[in-house]
């Protein structure tokens, strides 16, 4: 999916996260700040990159402020932000499973 506009998803409440996305000319840049980076940083990175890969996102600037969200919440907020930032298309739910 191509990121064509800026978008936000999520909140800064505990157990949630805020995802900000913006288009870039080229390349994919991901910035993650988390209260639990020391303990779960590798797992968060794995969820983020797996979600981006499943949605074919290879370009854009993504900032994540994590407040201790579960994997399923990280995936959901990132998917929401990407869908809001991309051109509207029919959602392929199988790709999001």
């Amino acid at each position: 999916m191509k990121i064509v506009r800026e978008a936000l998803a999520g909140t800064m409440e505990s157990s949630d996260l805020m995802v900000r996305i913006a288009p870039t000319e080229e390349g994919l840049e991901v910035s993650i700040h988390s209260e639990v980076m020391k303990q779960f940083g590798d797992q968060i990175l794995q969820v983020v990159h797996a979600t981006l890969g499943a949605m074919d996102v290879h370009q854009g600037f993504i900032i994540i402020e994590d407040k201790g969200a579960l994997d399923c919440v990280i995936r959901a907020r990132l998917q929401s932000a990407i869908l809001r930032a991309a051109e509207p298309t029919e959602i392929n739910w199988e790709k999001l499973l």
Partner: protein
Amino acid sequence: MNKLRRSMLFLPGANAAMLSTAFIYRPDSIMFDLEDAVALREKDTARLLVFNALQHPMYQDMETVVRINPLNTPFGLPDLEAVVRAGVDVVRLPKTDTPEDIYELESHLERIELACGREVGSTRVMAAIESAIGVINAVSIARSSKRLIGIALAAFDYVMDMQTERGDGTELFYARCAVLHAARAAGIDAFDVVWPDVNDEAGFLREVELIRRMGFNGKSLINPRQIDLLHNAYAPTQHEVDHAKLVIEAAEEGERNGLGVVSLNGKMIDAPIINHAQMVLERAAASGVRR
């Protein structure tokens, strides 16, 4: 033993913290709400939160229900596409007025199940009745689909439709009776309305006692604090459990001796009494004895 559905806890679909922790409260069923509890601009993220939460191990050993948006809104069908694929157990259809509403839902469910490889018929349905016409059509709604596990009365829209307001329960009397009879005639469960004032425990317990005696299977809840209160109210007393055990023992002895009808303390024990005793013991096994 039938699935117990005393407590059905509503969770706002857009609230990540509640979605992450609600399983610890162990309601009989957990109901993710994509409809009234979600603001219009958060419908898309709530759908994705629920879609992902449904697949999480924390919700695999508990019955999951999703209240989708009505199918005549832009949100209803995308909700259905998402939650069926995510493995929801039961879809709650709001504002069910006619059996045709259920037929429409069924046709979409079958199409989605076939498309994603889910067994056709495995997604169950609950119809929420929220209007005068829905109450009048309760019997035909309750009989409209093999997928139906139950029908639920929803009070807020219903009392508005009736041009009244929530009070001592008189305003819901006919609707409760109609929904309950429709459910029993169709052999499915019946669920009562939410009690909105979480700080009024006495009022909540009065209403629970009323609907338990009427015969409702349970109640929709909006706060985890109400779960234990509800389960305790649905638990049989020690006296009821002791009596039920005596009934079962007497019935078993009668069967061993080839007697069709037996008596206990001079009272006849027949099939309805034995069935009731079994239900009491099943409830005691699930809820313990009332405190």
